[in-house]
């Protein structure tokens, strides 16, 4: 994980609970440099918004508001 990814993941965990109140469920929210830089109702429109601000990069961090991302999963094979 790069330092930018780690910074964005920490920033997300700090505001995780607020995102569900601030945006509709499933709304796409992008973080870069440890702060929210764009949001949109779907992935493709988020890409357009990121492109408009020069941040159409793969290390930009994207979550969906209200979605619970687990700290741990268990996989049986």
């Amino acid at each position, binding site marked *: 994980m790069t330092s930018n*990814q780690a910074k964005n993941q920490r920033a997300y965990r700090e505001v995780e609970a607020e995102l569900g109140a601030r945006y509709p469920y499933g709304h796409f929210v992008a973080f870069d440099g440890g702060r929210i830089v764009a949001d949109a109702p779907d992935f493709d429109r988020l890409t357009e918004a990121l492109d408009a601000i020069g941040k159409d990069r793969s290390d930009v961090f994207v979550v969906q508001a209200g979605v619970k991302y687990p700290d741990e*999963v268990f996989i049986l094979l």
Partner: protein
Amino acid sequence: MGAQQKNIYRGEPARAWIRLHLVSAGNEWRECDFLVDTGNPCAIIVDASTMRGFVWRGSVSTDSNFGALEAGWLRLAIPELEFDVKTLGYASDKLVDVVKRSDPKFAGLVGLPLLRMLEYGGNGGHFWVKAPASG
């Protein structure tokens, strides 16, 4: 009957699998076969190299009984089903190494979140997926 992808079980032991296209942000694509595991809570798990080549965005990484799973948004397509989505996937070399014990040609593992975007099923000889019924 609509289009479907129907695959003979493969590997040792025999496993269900599906063929997907991974599509990069630069519109490069790779056709790969993935072991199907309905008990897997992740849509797709690939190795780290594949994730680096095809990731569109980062996301919330997690831990697992196979170690860390690095998250990334991936574009997945099954052209014959007109299926094309961007979904959250994970990278784990350790887990993909285990999958390859069934068949070295498997590129990773798909799970229930991906299968729920399709219709899927199987019988004694085959596993199949098809596009979800409209409505």
